[in-house]
């Protein structure tokens, strides 16, 4: 018998390590992966189609549901795109709060990644620790927006509401306690021989391959390509903050781990700076065509009532044109491509989801490796299927 004997198995769509509904068809030679074919679409909900039937402000809650671990990052990319289309500049206070909240979001998203990635590889306790701290971030979401996960806190033109009383203290206490927590996670993993064995030299991707495959975010930076949109095309005032870009060298699972751990520290530094320099002032543009008038005004002023009525019944119109706005989300380049035909409903909305693009690199990283490595590699790419399938 000389014929090659391989076995084909389905990993997923309900495998715990696929983080949602991802199906991988693995062709195995013994325990070695010969071919890996991802099948996606199980969570496809037609978000782009729905967005094309909603008024501009109504699209925001849809964006929450893409990368549901980083709802505020998605909100930010979308509102920035609409603001760019309309030529709106939001007030400084709104900008700083947006930065602060999205950086907390980055920490929250990385914490879920850390916990689930570690549990995939077998380190149970990290998960419990990481989710303990993430809970604090979810509490902050609840305080500002009223919802723990689908926060929809940002609006075109600014924010839904100002920060609640004593919120700054909440953030400050988190910022003070979190460095010790990070050290705790690192104590458990960074020098742990099992962790190192499972991650070092696993899932290696070369920088030129990563660029060719369009990888972005920590996945790209772990290969040594220092591209961060917050630095290369600062949005929402990122040019005013001092922070460093994470950078790896080997492009393996371990370097991706180090990059994200580093990023959490940097995000913390940004949050700290945002807290220090939080300006006073309005939290949304003072344009009644975009921002609803304050409720007491509606009862007293005829104009305010008209604006209120028009905003809730018709929304606002945008100039004819198209824009592409991308931000550095926790997963990578999150882009929004908006096409407007001049009406109050976007003609076309496309979301460039980093998870969708990053996942495409999985076969190149997994082929030739063991099945057990596939689990480690999926975890290290940090995908969210809500965003992959949209």
């Amino acid at each position: 018998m000389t014929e090659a004997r391989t076995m084909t198995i389905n990993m997923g769509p309900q495998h715990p390590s696929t983080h949602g509904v991802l199906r991988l068809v693995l062709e195995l030679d013994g325990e070695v992966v010969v071919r890996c074919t991802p099948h996606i679409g199980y969570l496809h909900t037609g978000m782009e189609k729905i967005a094309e039937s909603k008024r501009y402000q109504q699209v925001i809650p849809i964006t929450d549901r893409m990368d549901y671990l980083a709802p505020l990052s998605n909100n930010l990319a979308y509102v920035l795109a609409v603001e760019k289309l309309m030529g709106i500049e939001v007030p400084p206070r709104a900008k700083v709060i947006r930065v602060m909240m999205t950086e907390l979001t980055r920490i929250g998203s990385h914490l879920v990644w850390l916990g689930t990635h570690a549990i995939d590889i077998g380190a149970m306790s990290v998960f419990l620790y990481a989710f303990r701290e993430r809970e604090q971030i979810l509490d902050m979401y609840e305080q500002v927006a009223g919802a723990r996960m689908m926060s929809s806190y940002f609006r075109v033109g600014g924010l839904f509401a100002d920060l609640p009383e004593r919120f700054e203290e909440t953030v400050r206490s988190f910022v003070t306690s979190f460095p010790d927590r990070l050290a705790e996670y690192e104590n458990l993993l960074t020098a742990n021989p099992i962790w190192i064995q499972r991650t070092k030299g696993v899932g290696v991707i070369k920088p030129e391959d990563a660029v060719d495959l369009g990888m972005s975010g920590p996945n790209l930076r772990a290969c040594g390509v220092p591209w961060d949109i917050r630095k290369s095309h600062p949005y929402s005032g990122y040019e005013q903050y001092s922070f460093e870009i994470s950078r790896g060298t080997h492009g393996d699972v371990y370097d991706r781990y180090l990059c994200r751990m580093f990023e959490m520290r940097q995000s913390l530094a940004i949050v700290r700076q945002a807290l220090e320099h939080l300006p006073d002032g309005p939290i949304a543009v003072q344009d009644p065509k975009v921002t609803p008038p304050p409720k007491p005004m509606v009862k007293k002023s005829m104009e305010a009532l008209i604006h209120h009525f028009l905003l809730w019944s018709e929304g606002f119109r945008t100039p004819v044109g198209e824009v592409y706005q991308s931000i550095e989300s926790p997963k990578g380049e999150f882009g929004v491509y908006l096409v407007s035909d001049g009406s109050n409903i976007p003609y076309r909305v496309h979301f460039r989801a980093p998870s969708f693009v990053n996942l495409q690199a999985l076969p190149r990283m997994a082929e030739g490796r063991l099945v057990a490595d596939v689990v480690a590699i999926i975890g290290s790419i940090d995908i969210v299927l809500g965003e992959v399938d949209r």
Partner: protein
Amino acid sequence: MDDLKEANAEENLTVWKLRERFPEAILSTKSFRNEITIVVKPSEISRVCRHLKEEPELRYDFLSDLTAVDRLREHPRFEVVYHLYSLQFKRRVRLKVLVEEGEAVPSVTQVWGTADWHEREVYDMFGVGVEGHPDLRRILMPEDWEGHPLRKDYPVQASPKWWEEGGER
């Protein structure tokens, strides 16, 4: 965000370089909110892309995004949109190719590997064929799905017939 003045597309280095190299392939250019859009002849798109990627002064080595827009009732009906990025020069440019229903666009998978899934999505969602794609299958919808959901004549709210009739697929 507040654009002080709109850039002139024709003064843009990328446009200028492309016009010099491919005088026939560039159909029109436009600048909106300081984003440059270049409409390219469908047959030339992969050559133009390769040039943009390899030309040392341009180096658009990163394909950020590839998608399509359905301009129902316009001719040609579909716009296939490419968002290119240069990691070295930190520049963006948007390319567009206009195709009629039933026509295919040439694949750019040979230029950027990442185009693979994007082009499958364009095919799946719009029914725009991609010529020279290594593995053109639906990607988000089931393989036996009928219709292309992001077309403008596809309803936002509707169920497939077999579902309405309560039968088996």
